[in-house]
Structure formats: C-alpha cells, structure tokens
C-alpha cells in the first residue's frame, strides 16, 4: 500500500499489505495473518529444494545490485565443514530509500520468517540482522519480535518443534553509510572499522569471521515466505515487461511529489504512472525536471527519460541508469540541479571510508569544485575537470562508493549542463552554497 497513504488500486500489495496495522507487529497478529506457515513448510523441505524454488521464482536482490537470490544461496558450500552465517542487510542508508524501515517497523515477523527460511536453506548457524544505528524504532520493533519468536519456539534450539536450531541476533550499526556494502558490513559485525574488503574471496567462500556467508537485503528476505507459500510460478508471473525481472518491488518516492511514500508495484511498472498517478504528480504549477529512480547512486534521468522508463532492472538499464534500491528522488522545475548534485557529492565525501585514494580525494574534490561553481568562481574548464575526475573515480576502487558519487555528477553535467554554465558565466547568482 502507498504507506503513509491509502493503498492505490494499481498497486500489487504483497510485502506492504499490512503496513500501518499496529496489530501485525505482534506474534499473535502475524500468525493471524498467515505468518510462519511458510517457515513450517520450508522446514519440512530440504535446503536444496528451497534454493531451487527461490531460483525458479526469479527473485533478485532488492538492495541495489539485483543479483539472483537463489543463485547466491547456491554458492554456499553444500558439504558443511565449518560454521555458516546469514547476514541480513538492514543498514538502509541510500539517499531516497526508506522501504526496509517500513518492513521492519510494521512487519518485523515477516523479516524474521524470511531470515529463518534463508538461514535454513544455506545451513547457517546464526543470522545477524545488521540494522543501522539511527533506526531506533526498527531496532526496538525487531528486537521485540525476536524475543517473541524465541518465546514461541519459532527460533531457538528446537525451531517450530522440528529439532532444528535457528539463532538470530540484531547487530546495531553506529552511523556509517558504507556499512551497507556487504564486506564493510561483515567487518562491522566483526568489530572493525567498516572498510570494504577486496573480492575475491566472495562471502560464500570467506565472509563474516572468515566463514561461508550469505548477505541479503531486508526486502529480498521478506519476499521469501510469500514465494514458499504461493510458489515460484506465481512470483515469476508478476512481471509486466521483462521475464528476468519478477515479483513486486517497493518504491520509496520522495522529493517534489504530492504524495511521497512507499508504493508496491509489479516489476516493469511505468515510472510515469508511479509519479503522476500513484504519487499524485508534481506540486501545484510545477513540472517534472529530473528523477533518480534507484537511490542516489544511480545516474539521473531527465523528464523525457523518466516519462518513458519502465521500472525493472532492464527498463532502467535501457535508459542508462539502474533500478538500484528503488529509491525514487523527484526534482521539479524549481530544483537547482547544481546545488543538489553538490549536496549528493558532499554526502559521498562524508561517507567515504577513505581507504582508496580515488574515492577519498575524488569525492572531496568533486564537492569543492561544485561549491566553487556555486559560489560564482567556477570556470568552463571545471566541467571537463569534473568529468575527468569522475572517470578516474569509476571502476578503480575496492567498492562502488566513488562510482556512486561520479554517477550523478556525470549524468548531471551531461543532462543539465546549461545550469552549470549559468553559474559559471554569472547568468545565475550564487544560491548560498554551503
């Protein structure tokens, strides 16, 4: 549903069906809504069967990369010779994205059930749910639900009376965007600085504590019980445009729309309809200028591209951007693109872990150059300098944080060059750049 608004008839509510219902947060309320039926069913299957169903469903990672979930699970060793771990990535920090927070605050048991099924499928001893430190409400809600799940025997040494052991704990982050990167997240669980690790080795070979590990996003895991209950074919049938993108997806819409919030639609839904129909369009007298469809790390679309973009992995790629996390940031014609892109660059400069030179220096210099342009002290050659810097920041570092900074800068200059030039020529006056 379009939380915090009433559900829209064009939504396909699966994950968000119970958003806004206080009762759904409790164990009893969740069971009343069909909770833990899927886990019981899954515990009666073999891990290989579960992985096969998830593969068949076409479910892909909802955290941003879109990697096929069943395939990821299948990389875990089949013969268990050492401890396995599942990490649930609930470090939702990608600007524009606020869907996992709603899953955790309204349907914490959906997440626990999804984690429990995944944990069993990859034969993990422990699940760590890594929740960002700022999400105080989600932390309390999920902890309360975990306590209930242990008390009701859903988790613990004899999960649902099957004799199987399922242990699950929250690990609270402490303020670092980069810990949403899977290897940084593992370091953070281990009690280290959240610096990403070089891959390979990939987590399935050597992850947290050096043991085989799978890391999945909250939304990905929350979808799993529905797939177990209703079958892979049902999930695969939820696809409007490309058979490689299946299921429903939560889109968090923010910025200059009348009704910001979370909207759940079938993969392949037109971005145009999401913005104008579900979200009620732009504010009075305003028109769409630009849109970032997948969280701040993906290239910006102009109005034309936005109005013809289909919301699935392939549809976004076709427009030169990415579906990412589904965080849709909307800019109307009042937005100062130069200022907002500077603000994004400043975000990445602040969040760089500073391991790689290209990122540490690049994000800081991009921010400074953009601030110089905003202050009316820029030169035309600064635009080439920004593009050159962005080139040096792309594909050259351990993780993609610096690529993520470059994406809005490059697409911004390419699509809104006249706004940068207006500051440089003095046609536009400094808007008070910080």
């Amino acid at each position: 549903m379009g939380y915090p608004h009433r559900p829209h008839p064009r939504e396909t509510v699966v994950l968000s069906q119970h958003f806004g219902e206080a009762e759904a947060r409790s164990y009893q309320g969740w069971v009343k809504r069909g909770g833990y039926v899927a886990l019981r069913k899954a515990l009666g299957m073999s891990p290989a069967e579960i992985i096969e169903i998830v593969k068949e469903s076409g479910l892909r990672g909802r955290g941003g990369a879109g990697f096929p979930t069943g395939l990821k699970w299948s990389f875990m060793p089949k013969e268990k010779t050492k401890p396995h771990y599942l990490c649930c990535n609930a470090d939702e920090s990608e600007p524009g994205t606020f869907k996992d927070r709603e899953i955790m605050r309204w349907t914490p048991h959906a997440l626990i059930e999804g984690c429990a099924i995944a944990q069993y499928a990859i034969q993990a001893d422990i699940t760590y749910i890594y929740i960002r430190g700022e999400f105080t409400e989600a932390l309390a809600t999920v902890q309360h639900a975990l306590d209930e799940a242990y008390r009701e025997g859903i988790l613990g040494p004899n999960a649902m009376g099957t004799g199987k052991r399922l242990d699950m704990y929250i690990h609270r982050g402490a303020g670092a965007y980069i810990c949403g990167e899977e290897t940084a997240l593992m370091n953070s669980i281990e009690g280290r600085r959240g610096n990403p690790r070089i891959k390979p080795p990939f987590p399935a070979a050597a992850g947290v504590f050096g043991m085989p590990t799978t890391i999945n996003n909250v939304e990905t895991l929350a979808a799993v019980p529905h797939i177990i209950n209703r079958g892979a074919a049902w999930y695969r049938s939820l696809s409007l445009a490309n058979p490689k993108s299946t299921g429903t997806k939560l889109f968090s819409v923010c910025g200059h729309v009348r009704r910001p919030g979370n909207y759940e639609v079938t993969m392949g839904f037109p971005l145009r309809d999401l913005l104008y129909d579900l979200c009620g369009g732009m504010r009075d007298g305003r028109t769409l200028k630009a849109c970032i469809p997948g969280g701040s790390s993906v290239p910006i679309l102009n109005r034309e591209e936005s109005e013809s973009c289909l919301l699935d992995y392939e549809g976004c790629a076709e427009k030169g951007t990415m579906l990412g996390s589904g965080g849709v940031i909307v800019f109307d014609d009042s937005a100062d693109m130069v200022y907002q892109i500077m603000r994004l660059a400043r975000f990445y400069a602040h969040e760089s872990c500073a391991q790689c030179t290209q990122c540490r220096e690049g994000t800081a210099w991009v921010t400074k150059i953009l601030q110089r342009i905003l202050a009316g002290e820029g030169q035309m050659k600064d635009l080439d300098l920004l593009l050159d810097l962005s080139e040096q920041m792309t594909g050259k570092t351990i993780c993609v944080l610096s690529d993520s900074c470059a994406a809005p800068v490059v697409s911004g200059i390419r699509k809104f060059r006249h706004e940068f030039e207006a500051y440089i020529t003095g046609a536009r006056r400094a808007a008070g750049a910080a």
Partner: protein
Amino acid sequence: MSAQSTAPYEPVFTGEMRRRLDVVLARYPTKRAALLPALWMVQEARGWISDAAMTEVAEVLGLTPAYVKGVVTFYTMYHQHPVGKHFIQVCTTTPCNLCGAEEVVRAFLKHTGCRELGATSPDGKYTVIEVECLGACGFATPVMIGDDFIESVTADKVPELLRKYP
C-alpha cells in the same frame, strides 16, 4: 582532543552491565565482535565515550586502546565529547534538502541558542548537527532528538517540538 576529567574513572562494566555484556559476547565467535555493542553500552551509560572508557573496553575485550579508538572514530554516532542533554540530528541530504531541510536546521539553531552546528547551547541542553541521510526521505525532514525519531518536521514546528525536550 577528547575532554578529560580529573575525577577517578568509574568502570562501566561491573554488575548488571557486565552481565549484559556477557550475554552479548555469547552471540559471537570472537570477543572483538562485541566491540560495537560494548561501545553502545558505554554511550548509553555515560552519554559519550571518553579515552578512559575506550581503555576499559579494550581491556574487557582483549584489544588495544588504539584499536578501539580507531573503531570509535570511524562511526559517526559515537560521541567522543560530551554533548548537550538533547542531541539533535537534522537530515539535510538531497531528498530532505529539496523539501526545505536547511530551513529546519536554521530553526533549530535559532530556537536552541546553539551558535553553530556541533556546538552545545550555553545552557548545556542542546547540541544540533546536520546528519547525512536518516533513511526516511518520504517523511522530510526527519529529525532525531536523542533516541526519538521524528518525521515530517518543518521549520514552523520546531519551537513546539523543542518544548517537549526541556
């Protein structure tokens, strides 16, 4: 430099706190993994994490004080200095910025009496900072006051909101 006190250091991890830490330690295969939770416990008990507290945490977990400091300084939510009674974090990243977050920041500075971002008000009650993406972009502008997460704050709501945090 961290603010230092001349009073003798009172350890955090005694009695009930030590028992709580033992429960946390049992969740991980290494002692080091309990570092972030242990630091949260220190901050909860003392309001901030002093050098002396870092040394205590290091001893308890078998780490060096330098290592602990390296971790503390990496994560922005750990306070290395005392802060006001109410620690106010206003999100100003792009989505909130589009919706007027900078006016919200100005309103907080004005109504708390904080001279600048990061400074504590003369009465010791408030510290205001800008924070990067709080992950509630559809509820612009989200603000954290202590552990309270408040959605959809606008500049005009600030005085009334602050009355709840005397």
